[in-house]
Every structure is written in C-alpha cells, then in structure tokens.
C-alpha cells in the first residue's frame, strides 16, 4: 500500500537524481535520495534489521529472498520487552518441559510471508546460544521454539525475533488446535488407506478384465475376486464411514445431500459384489467403489485443509489481543503478567494508549476511553473513579488503575464472543447446489442401471449385467463429487492469498447471488479514525495548535497534530481539561484549543466563526475552536472521513445486482451525513442502532432474502452470525473475526468488491464443472447402456472427466484476477 503511494513520488524524482535509490532491506524508494555512504534505507526499522542481520552473519537472507523471488516488505519491529514470557505463570500455561530440562512453546509470529522468512527464523537457533530449535510453520505463521532455560530466556528469543521484524505472541486456544490437528490427521489417514485400497483393487480389476478377454482358469478368477474383496473391505468398512454418517444425518433431517446416494451406491455395489464373489459368477465392482471413496476423500481433505487455514488465521489474530496485564503489587511495584493469572480484586494499571485487559472499576485516575469495539460508538467516553470499564476498551489519554472484577472468559467481551460462536453453531447448514444436483444425478444413474438390467435381461444375464456395470463405471460420479470441492478449495486458497479468509464453500456460493449488503459505518465505509476534515480561519496559527496539542493523547489532539506541522515551536506549558480541550503557553502566546464552552471561558467567539462551527456540527463533524491570546481566530472540523474508494466500490457492488444499506451504532446525524457524502442510493440508512436492534434488522431481512452483513466490531458480532454471510473487516476487533464466516485481513472496501466478484467467478467455475461432467456422463452413459462401451473401455474413460474437472478448477482465476 505504502509502495503504491510512494511509487509515483519516486518516479517523479528520477529525473532529479541519477538513479533511483531504493531501500537495501525492503526495496521501497528512499525519499530524499542518497543520505550517507553504503546501503540506503527507507526507515529506521529496515536499517536496524539490516544491521542485526549483518552482525549475526545472516545476510544470506537477501540472496535467498532474491532466489525465491519473494515479496519484499518493510520491517516493523514493535520494540516490546516481552518480560511476561519469563514469568513462571507463562511457563505453567504455555510451555512444555522436555526430559532434558529444555522448554518448548509455540508463538504466533506477525509478518512471516516467504521462504526467506522460514530460513531466517530457523537460523535463530544457530545465532542465539541456548536455543535448541526454532521451526516455523509458514501457513499458520507459528514458530515452535525449544530452548535451555539455564542458558537463555524466552524473552531474549522473542526480542531477537521482534528486532528482525517478527513480533511474537503466545498462542491462544491450544485445546481447539489439538482437536483440529487430530481430526486432520484422521482424515489424511483415511484418505491414504482408501488410496492404497483403490490402487490394489484396480490391479485386481485389470487382471480380471484381461482374463475375461483372454480366458482365465476359474480357480484364478476366484482368487482375484477374493483378493478384491479383501483389499476393498478396509475402504468400505472404515474409510467410507464418513459418508454413511452424512447419509444418516441427511435421512434424519430430510435434507438432500450427496452423501446419501454415494452411500447407497457404495453399499449396493459392495453387497452385490460380495454376493457375486460367493456365487463365483458375475461382476464385482470393488475397483469403482474404492476409487470413488478415494477421490471423494481427496476432495474432502483438500477442502478441509483450506477451511482450516481460515479458521486458524482467525484464532491466531486473537493472539494479537492483549494477553498481559500490568498488576500493581501491595508495595506499589508494577509487574506485567499473563492476563489468565490476574485474580479477582487485584489492582491493574492501564497506561495511555493501551488496551484494557479486564473488566473492573476505576479506582484511580481520569481518562477517556475508546469503547468502539464493544458498542460501535466512535466518540470516546470519559471515565473517572468508580466508573465501570470493560476489557477490549482502549485507554486514550491518562493512566488509570482498575480494581479487577472479571478476567478472561468471564469478561463481557469474551461472553459476547462466546454467545456469537454459539449462535453460529446453531445455524442450519446451507445446502450446496452441487450436493443437490449430484444427489439427483446418482439416483438417476442407479435407476437407469437397474432399468438396463431389466430391459436387456432377455439377451442373457451376462450381457445385461455387463451393460449395467459399464454404465456404473463410466458414470462414476467422481468428477461430479470432485467438481465442487476442488473448485471451492482452489478458490478459497486464492482468496486467502488475496487477503480474504473464507471459512466454507457454501459462503462463496451464497455470496455469488444478489442480496442486501448491510454496512456498519465505523471502519468499513469510513477510515475509522478521526482526522482533520476542514479548517476555517487563520492558517498561520497551525504550528501553535500542533505544539499545544502535541502533549495530549486524545484522538482529537492526535488528529490535529497529524494534519499540522510544528515548525520547531514547542509548548512551554500545557494543561488539559477533560472533555474540554487544552490550554497551553506556546512561544509566549496563550493558546486555547477545544470545544466552544472551553474556549468561551477566556475569549469571545465571533458570531461568524460560531455559525461556521454550527455548520460543521450539522455535517456531523466535531467543531474545535482555537483562540490565541484571547482572540478566537479559527475553527477546525474533526471527523471520521469517508474512504476515498467508497463511492466507486459501492457502485461496483450495485452493478453486480446487490442492494446496499447502512446500519450503524453511531449518532443518526453522523450516519446520514456519511450516507450523503458517499451519494449512493441506499435502501436504508439507520443510525443509533443497538446490537439488539441490528440483530432484529438482520433477522427481519434474512427472512426475505440473502443478507450480507459487513462489520468490524464485537457489537456487530450477533448480527454478523445472524446474516446469511457475515463478513468481518479487520480493524481492532480481532475477536469478532472468529464469529464471521468470511473476513478480510486488509482494511478498506476493495477486498469486499474482490470477494463478491471472486465468489461469482467461483460459482461460474463450479457450474462449468458440473455441466461438463453431466454432459460427459450422460452421453457416455447412454452409449454404455446401449452396449457401445464395454466395461474395460469404460474403466479407461472414467478418469477423463475427472482430469477435466481438476484442470478447470486449478486453472481458473477466481480471486486475485487482476494481479
């Protein structure tokens, strides 16, 4: 993103400087040209990583990165101390102790993205003494560290990784991860065994087919039949149990599901095969059946693997939420500990700019806190002693001390998330188009096969059964069974590369159909951050404002500072009035910046500026008045600006046939002002909605058609899970990502457009696959039923449609098409 912004700048400068100067670490242009001798850097972060790599003798990283052709990224170390990782509580909760006294744990690393990162992270064990192993799992961004606690501390290892630009976080939800891993392994074993069975059954089948042409002694035919039964049994009795269970569920709930006809096919085929083997006559179908089981399991496994990655990504993002709290001991000393170990009644400190990690009551300090995560309200709330604060809020201006009432799973934040996860689990599963279609298809094939036997029986039983077998073999619904899982898993994989985590194929199908898209305003349509939108009055006072506000952590102050330069002027003294503004002495002048009432204390506001302030207020901006030496000379409008691409993106979504609405917890005036600025014809614009109100709105509309809810706060989470598809946009509320069906790891509206367009392309691929395999199966099936295709030719033709489907799925550009 930064590169996009900087690239035109660099091109503009190219004529000035002889050659473009690029950063030695990340390859971004260095603004201002060559500064010193030697390698050039775009920022201090890159410079320090380069220096560390050089000191540690790890410069091979750069050549490796070139060889792999990996994307270059700017380094960003967080500079944290990681002292909490050395606490005994951390060891008890997160570490395992090996027999040799070494400790092992897993950390989630930010920013790892390529093969060179793998190399670099794994080299840490050779650079730091006492580290026995660092192994990185790139797809999960998790590093497994084992170390000798006598020689090195975990905080030292984490600090080193951090200094390389990979901040680490303790992994949350280890139990869930273990269960997931067990399930994955089980499915993989089933797939492998089904594959072995299918391969061997195929060998026996080919032998039998050949024997049928060249003549084989009956005793050997018998041997091969029994051999087929033997190798097919594990596949039928164990590997395929998954489908039987699905079939039972389908029968119980009266929903059409592909598992039902698949199970029927497997059971009928197996029983008749075994009966024929016992009678030593007729065909056995074990090659077809085992191959069907194997290919279907391959499809399931591929799909599950992609969905797991999305699930794991959501869990890991939760690891980014604050996992430590600063506990104040009785003697007044402050200690950072894992939040799990904070007890009821303890005293916890939250500094300005930090997340509050517990639910509790403020006992000391006055501050303003940002509760947008919990309520969706974008304006900070003032808190003081005896005020109740909740985990997930961000402390903005001054340190406060909180008496702990609830921690961990008992906090309001955790309960909101849990309630949402429960609601999502209760929701009825969607039935995929392909499942319905394949179900009917397989039922039709079985009927036609039975009819073929009945109608050709007069030509002799062997002819009749031969034709039926050819029909079953040639129309083996492998391609049909694979059509959706393959297309979906390929699409989910591509989407993940484009920054969109999709948790299931059914959501892609739902997103491809037109529906109502409901936006939460904060953070999705707007930047989600206050900034200066308009400045009316004397521009020359701006350096004074910046200097006066530079000491304040209030969001309005930060917005003003970001938009103005101090030009070297500093404030001599500064006093902040909570909920009012600041009064400062800057270069000998008294500067007052704040609300109308705050400024009116020592200056008279001219009526002209007062009306301009009212106008700004009417546009849902917060007016901030500025007085210098008792003379009110300017008014600034602070607000949450609309994203520049909002209008274009929404028009694109509308052109895809979707309707759009805004549903926000913000003040109605603010919401309407935003809607007016975007200027797109919205179906509904609703402000001041409570979480319950949002839920009711979504449920009401979901009765009438597909509703896609786009939100970013935990307050949206209930609505997210009630919608047909809940889409979360990353931006602070990591916890809500677990509740969403789809989430975008990049902010902004562009990923959303990509999501809807990509889903549509994916559905097109699925439809293409289904059509192709249906046409193929029906035409060849007709030939088989009429006797033009024998069993052997049928077995040879069978893979053709499967290969067609596989190629179509992997070659199609569903997501990230414009790259």
């Amino acid at each position, binding site marked *: 993103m930064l590169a996009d912004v900087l690239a035109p700048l660099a091109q503009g400068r190219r004529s000035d400087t002889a050659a473009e100067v690029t950063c*030695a670490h990340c390859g971004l242009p260095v603004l201002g040209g060559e500064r010193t001798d030697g*390698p050039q850097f775009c920022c201090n972060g890159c410079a320090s990583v380069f220096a560390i790599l*050089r000191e*540690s*003798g*790890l*410069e*091979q990283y*750069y*050549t*490796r990165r*070139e*060889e*792999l052709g990996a994307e270059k990224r700017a380094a960003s170390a967080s500079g944290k101390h990681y002292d909490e990782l050395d606490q005994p509580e951390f060891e008890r909760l997160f570490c395992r102790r090996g027999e040799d006294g070494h400790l092992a744990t897993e950390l989630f690393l930010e920013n790892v993205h*390529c*093969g060179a990162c*793998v*190399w670099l992270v*794994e*080299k840490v064990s050779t650079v730091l003494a006492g580290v026995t192993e660092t192994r*990185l*799992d*790139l*797809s*999960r961004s998790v590093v497994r560290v084992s170390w000798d606690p006598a020689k090195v501390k975990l905080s030292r290892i984490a600090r080193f990784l951090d200094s390389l630009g990979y901040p680490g976080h303790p992994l949350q939800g280890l139990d869930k991860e273990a269960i997931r*891993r067990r399930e*994955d*392994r089980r499915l*993989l*074993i089933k797939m*492998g*065994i089904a594959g*072995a069975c299918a391969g*061997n059954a195929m060998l026996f089948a080919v032998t039998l087919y050949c024997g049928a042409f060249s003549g084989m*002694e009956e005793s*050997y035919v018998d*041997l091969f039949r029994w*051999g087929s039964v*033997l*190798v097919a049994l594990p596949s039928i009795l164990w590997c395929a149990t998954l489908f039987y269970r699905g079939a039972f569920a389908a029968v119980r709930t009266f929903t059409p599901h592909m598992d039902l006809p698949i199970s029927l096919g497997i059971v009928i085929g197996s029983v008749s095969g075994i009966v024929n083997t016992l009678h030593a006559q007729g065909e056995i179908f074990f090659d077809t059946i085992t191959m069907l089981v194997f290919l279907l399991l391959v499809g399931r496994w591929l799909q599950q*693997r992609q969905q797991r990655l999305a699930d794991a990504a959501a869990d890991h993002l939760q690891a980014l939420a604050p996992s430590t709290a600063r506990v104040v001991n009785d003697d007044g000393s402050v200690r950072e500990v894992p939040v799990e170990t904070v007890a009821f009644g303890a005293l916890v400190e939250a500094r300005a700019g930090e997340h509050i990690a517990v639910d509790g009551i403020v006992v000391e300090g006055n501050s303003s806190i940002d509760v947008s995560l919990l309520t969706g309200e974008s304006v900070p709330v003032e808190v003081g002693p005896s005020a109740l604060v909740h985990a997930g809020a961000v402390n903005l201006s001054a340190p406060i001390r909180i008496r702990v009432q609830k921690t961990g799973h008992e906090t309001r934040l955790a309960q909101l998330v849990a309630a949402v996860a429960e609601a999502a689990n209760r929701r009825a599963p969607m039935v995929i188009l392909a499942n319905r279609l394949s179900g009917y298809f397989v039922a039709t094939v079985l009927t036609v096969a039975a009819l073929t036997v009945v109608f050709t029986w007069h030509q002799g039983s062997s002819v009749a059964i031969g034709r039926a077998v050819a029909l079953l073999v040639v129309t083996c619904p492998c391609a049909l069974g694979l059509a959706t899982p393959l297309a979906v898993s390929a699409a989910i994989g591509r989407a993940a590369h484009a920054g969109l985590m999709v948790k299931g194929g059914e959501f892609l199908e739902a997103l491809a159909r037109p529906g109502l898209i409901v936006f939460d305003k904060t953070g999705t349509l707007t930047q989600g951050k206050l900034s200066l939108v308009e400045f009316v009055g004397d521009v020359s006072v701006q350096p004074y404002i910046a200097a006066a506000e530079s000491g304040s952590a209030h969001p309005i102050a930060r917005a003003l500072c970001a938009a103005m330069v101090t030009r070297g002027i500093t404030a001599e003294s500064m006093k902040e009035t909570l909920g009012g503004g600041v009064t400062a002495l800057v270069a000998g002048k008294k500067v007052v910046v704040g609300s109308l009432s705050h400024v009116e204390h020592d200056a008279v506001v001219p009526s002209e500026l007062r009306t301009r302030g009212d106008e700004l207020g009417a546009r849902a901006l917060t007016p901030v008045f500025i007085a210098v030496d008792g003379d009110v000379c300017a008014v600034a409008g602070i607000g949450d600006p609309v994203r520049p691409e909002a209008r274009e993106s929404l028009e694109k979504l509308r052109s895809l046939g979707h309707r759009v609405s805004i549903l926000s917890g913000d003040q109605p005036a603010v919401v309407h002002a935003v809607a007016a600025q975007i200027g797109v014809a919205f179906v509904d614009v609703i402000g001041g909605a409570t979480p319950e109100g949002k839920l009711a709105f979504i449920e009401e509309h979901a009765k009438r058609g597909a509703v896609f809810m786009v939100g970013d706060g935990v307050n949206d989470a209930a609505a997210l899970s009630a919608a047909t598809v809940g889409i979360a946009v990353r931006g602070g509320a990591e916890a809500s990502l677990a509740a969403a069906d789809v989430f975008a790891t990049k902010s902004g509206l562009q990923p959303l457009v990509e999501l809807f367009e990509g889903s549509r392309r994916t559905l097109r691929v699925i439809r293409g696959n289904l059509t192709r395999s249906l046409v193929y199966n029906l035409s060849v099936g007709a030939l088989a039923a009429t006797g033009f295709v024998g069993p052997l030719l049928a077995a040879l033709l069978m893979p053709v449609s499967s290969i067609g489907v596989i190629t179509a799925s992997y070659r199609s550009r569903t997501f990230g098409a414009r790259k």
Partner: protein
Amino acid sequence: MTILYVLIPLALLLGAGAVVAFVWAVDSGQLDDMDTPPLRMLGDEDKAPERVERGTKSAHPSP
C-alpha cells in the same frame, strides 16, 4: 501359476507395510505442515554464513 497363491498374499503384505508406515508418519506429525518443508529444504545447506552485498550477482556462490 500356483505360485500366485503365495505371491499375491506376499505382495499384499508388502503393501500393508507401506500403509503402516504412512499411518505412523501421519501420527507422528510429519504431514501436519505441507507448505514449509519444501521451502526449508532450500535453506538447509551447511555452509558458513557469508557476507553478500546486495545488488551484486552473487546469488549462486561457488563452494
């Protein structure tokens, strides 16, 4: 051709051995991560870290 009565069970036994090996590999976690090992393979040479200036074409240093 009566040898088939011995050879086929023997072949099946060998196949079963391979299946057992596969199950062991999965259970010991060797197939949990399918993406990183192919990249790790490229980085596992035992050569001393060397100083490489960026931009020079020493991407494939001679041993």
